[in-house]
């Protein structure tokens, strides 16, 4: 097992390098003088001069990349000129807010999606199945930002159950219950699409598994149908569900950008959009590289989970 994790970690190195390369190349395509573009409205001739030297922009592309990469590896993501603080500090702060939001949504969509998928398969063509199938069709088609806005209208404005937006109350907030109250709506809105996708896939995988011979064996043993479905069948279906969870995590992380806009959540998605609109290029670059690297790490976790679950690939 340890060996596998190690191998998987090593294999991530070229992927991470590739990511930095792609981000670097995209950013290198900015038309005109990069230093001016980066500094934007804050550009003074001295600043432009200093930045050019700092980024090695007077040197060939490869050298520029290596300098930049070297800086990244030392934890130096540059400085946001719009915010006047180190990029990494800002990114870390914002990313932790996103992690709370996206993490909660991910747990929600995994649990709800699998639950709905299993129930749907177990009651194929029954009322529960039809209801869930219909909900899934609507769920995967609804724009999460629109859903979020409707939730605000209903739960925050109409019913006044939950706060409209933000992460903590301005007055007297800041504790866990306060966070949960603020988190409920955005996390739900963010999880809906992924829940639908996971439910649909789980249903398919379960239907496939339920026709297998080992399910008949489990029934022939006299196991309770509950145990057959939630134990034997689900365990086998998870083999094809887990990789999809990994993919959906990427979608949840992506969708967080919209949800953060709608609910004024101080996460990294909103930071990126603001940075783009202000043309704070170094902040965009740093944020993208950082989040992408975290996602690669998460996918390793998913692969390891898959490995633990399926003894056949372990062999």
């Amino acid at each position, binding site marked *: 097992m340890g060996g596998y994790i190690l191998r998987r970690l090593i294999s991530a190195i070229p992927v991470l390098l590739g*990511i930095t390369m792609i981000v670097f190349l995209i*950013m290198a395509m900015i038309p005109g003088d990069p230093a001016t573009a980066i500094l934007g409205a804050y550009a003074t001739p001295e600043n432009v001069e200093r930045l050019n030297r700092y980024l090695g922009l007077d040197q060939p592309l490869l050298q520029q990349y290596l300098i930049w990469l070297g800086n990244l590896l030392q934890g130096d993501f540059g400085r946001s000129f719009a915010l006047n603080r180190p990029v990494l500090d800002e990114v870390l702060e914002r990313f932790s807010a996103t992690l709370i939001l996206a993490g909660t949504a991910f747990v929600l969509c995994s649990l709800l999606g699998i639950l709905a998928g299993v129930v749907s398969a177990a009651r194929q063509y029954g009322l529960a199945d039809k209801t869930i199938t219909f909900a899934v069709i609507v769920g995967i088609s609804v724009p999460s930002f*629109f859903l979020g*806005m409707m939730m605000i209208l209903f739960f925050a404005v109409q019913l006044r159950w939950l706060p409209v937006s933000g992460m903590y109350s301005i007055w007297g907030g800041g504790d866990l219950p306060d966070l949960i109250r603020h988190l409920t709506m955005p996390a739900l809105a963010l999880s809906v699409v992924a829940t639908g996708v996971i439910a649909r896939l789980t249903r398919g995988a379960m239907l496939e598994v339920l026709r297998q011979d080992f399910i008949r064996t489990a029934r*022939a*043993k006299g196991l309770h*149908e509950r145990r057959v479905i939630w134990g034997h069948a689900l365990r086998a279906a998870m083999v094809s569900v887990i990789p999809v969870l990994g993919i959906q995590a990427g979608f949840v992380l992506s*969708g967080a950008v919209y949800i953060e806009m709608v609910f004024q959540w101080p996460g990294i998605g909103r930071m990126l959009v603001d940075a783009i609109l202000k043309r704070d290029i170094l902040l965009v670059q740093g944020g993208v590289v950082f989040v992408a690297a975290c996602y690669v790490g998460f996918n390793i976790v998913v692969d390891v989970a898959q490995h633990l679950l399926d003894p056949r690939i372990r062999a």
Partner: protein
Amino acid sequence: MRLFLQLLFRNRLAGFGAVVLGVIVVLAVLTPILPLHPPNETNTANRFLRPLSEGHWLGTDHLGRDLMSRLMWGTRLSLAVGFAAALFAGLAGAAIGVLAGYFGGRIDNVTMRGIDMLMAFPYILLALAIVAVLGPGLMNALIAVAVVNIPFFARNIRGVTAGIVHREFVDAARLSGMGNARILWSEVLPNVVPVIVIAMSTTIGWMILETAGLSFLGLGSQPPQADLGSMLGEARSALITAPHTSIVPGAMILLIVMSVNLLGDGVRDALDPRLRSGAPSRPEATTRVERATAPEATESGLLRLDRLETQFRIGKRVYRAVNGVSLNLSPGECVGLIGESGSGKSVTALSVMGLVASPPGVITGGAVRLDGQDLIGAPYEMLRALRGRRVAYIFQDPLSTLHPLYRIGDQLAEAITAHQPVGRAAARARAVRLLEDVRIPNPAARARAFPHELSGGMRQRVGIAMALANDPDIIIADEPTTALDVTVQAQVLALLDELRRSRGLAILFITHDFGVVSQLCDRVAVMYGGRVVEEGPTTDLLAAPAHPYTRRLIACVPELGGGRRRLAAIPGLPPAVDDLPPGCAFAPRCERAQDACRAGEIALAGKVRKVRCLFPETTP
């Protein structure tokens, strides 16, 4: 094409999606000639008019612009951008995929590495990075969304192409001297197009959503031009005071994306050959029963099958797999049930405990009595309590019948705890003893193994151990040795025989091999076309088969226990059980057949030796 449309509209939801989307597209196309207010005409006196206001059906927005008009123009723009992005991503992705798949080798390697890298990003990061470079704007948002989706298409289509390249018709084209370009155009492309269409139809909705999303963030269309996303984005600040300005464009996005998705699912189902026959059905916990009345109980015994009938209903066709089978099993007795595949012997065996897959299986008549108690139509909980407890099964191929992801010790322990109130540890210990009972060496260690780590013979011993777990009275063994090679087969049979004698088990042994029957069984019943055609004590029946079919079956066995010789030596095919001829089912293959054989029902005659034949080989 007609077939395609038929399939598409058979799916009602897809039809619904097609109609809704059709209406929206037509309206969007006609927008310039519809009698609408100019979409950008502001009128600050009429800000935030409610829907159904005079002259403004859907009301007005924060600048007093007519929402109806803006909605139609916005829809037009969103649709155009979404379709364009899908087309762009689809074509570019397909081009990359086809080239990589067709040429393979280095080109393939390098491209796919690149694609993998791109897929390592959560898609929106890439889109944001692209917009960051190009600057906000609708065209740039379109490019970003398209580029982000190229890897998905490229990878899909590369896989399909690589699969086609090694097929005969491509080789043939190459041998006939066609150039790469010609082959790609005339051989590869036609096979790839359906895949492209499927991939595009399932992603268009997504693309529309994504471009709308970027516009919502303010990175797409810039004012005064507005697609649905930016309408929603602009309306957000007035969400609470004038919710209709948000709801109108938002609902439209939902409607479009939903109809596109429904249609896309329909297209995929219609084009994907695997899905044509309909979605797979899940077998229910017990076989369905549709029985008018149970036959009168005759004398009681341990297990009595009485005129059992089981059918498979697939579409409009009815396959009578088991057609009035009666069979008797006494304590400690071993009865063989023998026949070709398709004769109904396995279905008979599975019907006993309601394990025939339903749908499509339905038990339509007869009774199965265990100690005089009818099991057909018995409540689920009663059947469950008997399964494995009093009647246990051993199945054919233990690699597919054991759960691949559970350790065998756990699978055994579970069989015990399903029926007996013992703790986990005790059940584990019992499981190890069971493995020992079936002569598995080093049982404690093997209990921790997964099925794929054992040999075929060992796996079947596990299967037997599992059947023994609750000391059942009856074991139904469905071809338990067929998947094994000859020596292992002999060992497993010897084990079964020994266990039967030491524990007084009754065994119903399903097989197609007379050699196996002769080693193990006291009595034997021969099945053909869903019926028992001959029955009797094994030695008598082997010495003097009465039914022509039995005789031929025995003649096929080269030597007793000789292994997996199939019944290919009998000319003709076993009958299709949805289309049984009247009279004797064996008549088309029988040398002794006469007109009388085809005339009508033939009874199973005799007391101890029974035979269903008008002109038997010997008179028993």
